[in-house]
């Protein structure tokens, strides 16, 4: 970026100030006091270049360098405080000038012609944008020169809902309310169950009949209510475990989920 020494600016521009620095004065004498009026060395260089009153393409870089250095020296002589980037630019320009005055075969790379061209190109671009900004600001601006309608009626989009509900939902809702409103009575139903005590009694008495292995299902009451059978199966299983724990019976199961057999311990 700063290969040609021109991106030296470190001082931020006058941001946020709506009434920025006054336009640079044109009188020679006023130049001394207006160092703060420029936004960096490039800005000052452009202003000096424009004083040559020639197209920036035809600018004399050598003359420009002399003007800049003379300007900075005058400011120093007046003991004005000069921002570092202006001094760096002055040093760079002094180097450029000496290089330009050297015989061509002693020149280093990049050549002073290249550096001068880059400087000229940059000044041209900055100048072009400065002119463009001025032309832009001079246009007929909305709210300053031309005006929109003062009191527009405005265009409104009114969002309207089309509500949707079907017959079934309506009737179902009424059913829900009716159901909700019926008096709530909690009743515990009597269920046919076999208690653990009766299962233990039943299983041990049946085991007493034989010494053979019996399947657990053989202990269940036959032809009974299926719900009673479920309960009896659970109770009889727990009864079998209990009897085994008490050492009164032994259990055998051949495979996982296979029939469970038990017999009396002799």
């Amino acid at each position, binding site marked *: 970026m700063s290969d040609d020494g021109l991106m030296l600016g470190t001082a931020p521009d006058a941001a946020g100030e709506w009434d920025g620095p006054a336009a640079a004065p044109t009188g020679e004498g006023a130049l001394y006091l207006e160092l703060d009026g420029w936004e960096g060395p490039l800005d000052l260089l452009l202003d000096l270049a424009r004083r040559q009153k020639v197209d920036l393409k035809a600018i004399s870089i050598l003359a420009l360098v002399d003007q800049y250095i003379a300007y900075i020296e005058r400011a120093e002589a007046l003991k004005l405080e000069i921002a570092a980037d202006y001094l760096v630019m002055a040093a760079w320009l002094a180097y450029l000038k000496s290089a330009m005055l050297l015989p061509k075969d002693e020149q280093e790379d990049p050549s002073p012609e290249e550096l001068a061209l880059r400087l000229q190109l940059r000044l041209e671009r900055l100048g072009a944008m400065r002119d463009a900004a001025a032309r832009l600001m001079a246009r007929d601006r909305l709210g300053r020169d031309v*005006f*929109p*309608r*003062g*009191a527009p*009626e*405005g*265009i*409104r*989009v*009114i*969002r*309207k*809902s*089309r*509500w*949707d*509900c*079907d*017959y079934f*939902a*309506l*009737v*179902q*809702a*009424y*059913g*829900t*309310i*009716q*159901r*909700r*409103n*019926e008096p709530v*009575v909690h*009743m515990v*139903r009597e269920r046919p169950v076999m208690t653990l005590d009766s299962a233990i009694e039943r299983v041990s008495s049946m085991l007493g009949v034989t010494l053979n292995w019996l399947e657990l299902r053989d202990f269940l009451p036959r032809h009974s209510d*299926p719900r009673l059978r479920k309960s009896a199966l659970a109770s009889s299983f727990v009864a079998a475990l209990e009897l085994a724990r008490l050492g009164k019976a032994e259990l055998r199961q051949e495979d996982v989920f296979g029939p469970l057999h038990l017999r009396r311990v002799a």
Partner: protein
Amino acid sequence: MSDDLTRAVEALLFAAEEPMSAEEIAAHLEGADVRAALDELQALYRPRGVVLVERGKRWQFQTAPDLAHLLRREREQARRLSRAATEVLAIIAYHEPVSRAEIESIRGVQTSAGTLDVLMEAGWVRPAGRREVPGRPVIYATTPDFLSHFGLTSRRDLPGIDELKAAGLLDKVDDAFEAAFARDDPTESAEEVASDGERP
């Protein structure tokens, strides 16, 4: 057409934030006589989409009355009625005319004002006077639009309690659950399933 004065009056009225009297307009134009310009502009704009009108000696541009509808564009959006609103609608349909307090006592929950608003916005419910009891509460009824939306000739077409029962819509939740559960278990006897359904 317009001379400079007419153009100036036109621009002033266009940019003005409030209607302007002829005197106010003239004050902006070095006291020129703007009467003729106003008449000219009024005639010029008469057939247009925008017209110049005088109200109480003040002048302003406004949209031509026949085009005012363009400025208020409606956009319809289908929305499903909430469960609460559906319930309120059903209560009004079955019990009309009915007050809000009555609706709430039937539903067993408070009903927000917005719910009734939605039903009135939908055009299905209307206020139908006041109940002559202390507090004179507003009572609500359904509208003809309600009948046509739900394909009913009259409110008598709504299914009665018995029909709701037959359709299973009044079944208690746990009864319905038992019935469904029993069906899944083929060992359960048919008698038992039937008797379950009748148990109180």
